[in-house]
């Protein structure tokens, strides 16, 4: 499933290359955020941009998320296409007003007269940094009308969805999973062929990365990679597990989800965001509303506590390939038990 060959790049390099290409293509694209210019981003996703595009288009900001996220919105409304980096998504708490009340609502509140075409990139997911630096919070954004939420699962989508995000006329939250940023693309369970320049990937169109039958695992971001590993393990046990990548939480490919669900005996939704009131519930509601009693058996596997620091505690609650496989196994055996003899 990995077509990257001997490519030694990681996800953050791909993000930087994509930003580079877009800044080259469109002079209205600017990049701003903490440590994005001199350092090139704490994950390296804005590396070497300032060298090419200078201080005017690549701006290190003070640690003032409200001010610089708000400024990105104001600049977008005035005609630029800012790509603003929120270093860790957990810092959402210090700028949520600008995102929730200004960014998301400008178009609606102006009756369509004013747009805020910007991308807010943010690193998400657990890398052993405990409760305030490991969250995903995708559903917190997705809950707010007016925001689009892209959550790439693979190197190819890091490029392709980012292109779409920058060119989109709506504000887009672009969630970059830290494992995807840090892992060499050739070492991932799944990677596209990256030899050709990236094409824009349309929002709102899920993809099936693996055919199943017994159970279909629906996920986003790095959980898709883990689900593929889990599916591999399940196959050795004789369980055919499919994997579906939703790609964008908003717009959500509801038709596609219903189609996938209709073809599956069981559907497991996996998320490293919190379980309650989140993507799992949204996917399951979509399927249940459309298929009613014809829906497959449904289950979710996601976080229900803050993320702990200690490794064993962390592993006990953050989904892994093993925990996803176990959840899928449990769902399949429960489904089998339901089938009348």
């Amino acid at each position, binding site marked *: 499933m990995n077509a990257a060959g001997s490519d030694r790049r990681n996800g953050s390099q791909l993000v930087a290359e994509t930003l580079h290409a877009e800044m080259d293509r469109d002079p209205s694209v600017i990049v701003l955020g903490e440590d994005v210019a001199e350092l090139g981003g704490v994950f390296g996703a804005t590396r070497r941009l300032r060298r090419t595009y200078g201080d005017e288009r690549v701006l290190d900001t003070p640690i003032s998320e409200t*001010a610089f996220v708000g400024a990105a919105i104001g600049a977008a409304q*005035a005609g630029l296409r800012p790509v603003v980096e929120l270093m860790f998504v957990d810092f959402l708490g210090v700028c949520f007003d600008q995102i929730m*009340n200004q960014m998301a609502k400008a178009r609606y509140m102006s*009756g*369509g*007269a004013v747009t805020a075409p910007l991308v807010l990139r943010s690193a998400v997911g657990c890398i052993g940094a405990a409760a305030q630096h490991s969250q995903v919070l995708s559903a917190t954004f997705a809950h707010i009308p007016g925001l689009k939420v892209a959550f790439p699962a693979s190197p190819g989508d890091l490029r392709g969805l980012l292109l779409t995000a920058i060119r989109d006329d709506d504000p887009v939250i672009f969630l970059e999973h830290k494992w995807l940023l840090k892992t060499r693309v050739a070492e991932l369970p799944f990677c596209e062929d990256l030899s050709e320049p990236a094409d824009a990937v349309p929002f709102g169109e899920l993809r099936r990365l693996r055919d199943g039958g017994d159970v279909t695992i629906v996920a986003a971001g790095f959980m898709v990679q883990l689900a593929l590993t889990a599916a591999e393990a399940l196959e050795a046990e004789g369980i055919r597990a499919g994997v579906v990548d939703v790609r964008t939480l908003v717009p959500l490919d509801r038709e596609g989800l219903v189609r996938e669900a209709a073809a599956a005996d069981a559907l497991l939704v996996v998320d490293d965001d919190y379980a309650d009131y989140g993507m799992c519930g949204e996917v399951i509601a979509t399927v249940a509303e459309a298929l009613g009693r014809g829906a497959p058996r449904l289950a979710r596997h996601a976080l229900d506590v803050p993320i702990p620091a200690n490794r064993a505690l962390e592993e006990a609650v953050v989904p892994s390939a093993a925990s996803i496989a176990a959840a899928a196994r449990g769902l399949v055996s429960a489904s089998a038990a339901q089938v009348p003899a």
Partner: protein
Amino acid sequence: MTAIDLADAYRTMAVYRRFEEAVGAAVVTGEVHGEMHLGIGQEAIAVALRAMLEPTDAVVSTHRPHLHALALGVDPVALLAELLERSGLSGGKGGHMHLFSRDPQFMCTGIVGASAPLACGDALAQQRRDPGRVTVAVAGDGSMNQGAVFESMNLAALWRLPVVFLCEDNGYGISVRRDVATAGQLADRGTPFGIPGHACDGTDPEAVYAALGPAFERARSGDGPSVVVATCYRFRGHYEGDADTYRPKGEKDDWMSAPRDPLSRLRARLEAAGVPVVELDAADAAAEAEVAGWLEAARSVPFPDVDRVRDDVYAAPGARQGVRA
């Protein structure tokens, strides 16, 4: 800097007063069903701002925004229609705290202090494209205690943004008196960032104009932001319907007395300077007629189409419902 034309200021302030009164009356008739914040008593600030603004400048205002919109030259009928819940400036979706105009470039926000970061971004976008253009971030005294404003001052100073932070200090954040909520002097709030501050009597258009002058000059010449604090008094409650029991009667009577009311005070001054009373009466009558005309025109603007309530969330309709484009 030329002096402000006080006779013209009087005519305009009379229009502003009548405008806000008309909006207040529309709350009573039920044409406005929601919250409404009026700027009666704060007209001198808006009229001085009007004298300072160029049509290409931008203003980002607050939850009490009408007079700033008029000052920038926003279409008064579209504005009034939006306030009256018709398909006005924002198609009926924004309402009085969320007014947006592209040309001239005006916007406002109902979140206290949130206008400052937006103004910084607007200024950032314009500073290279159109040097000499100014973005005004309007704030109330209450918003000066918001982190967003401090962060924005730092950013504006660092990046020498052409921003004028204009604080309308009407003495109260809803019911909380300034001295209960605010330490130090508001005009000094920019000092740690190296931003000059100017305090002025916000009931006197000439004083406000004089304070705005160096701030606009500094911004237009690329030297960065300024803070201007204009002290005034809101004549109405925080919102229409506010019982307003928190302000002492004596205080209200004093601020709203003829010698201190910005409009009657200016009238008295013009009379003393020899402007004929008939001329001032004519200005009053003209203001009345002008606002009545706007009101009539605004009332003929259709109501928003309920079938389009889900439009304008995204560029393409249905994005949230999962409908493919």
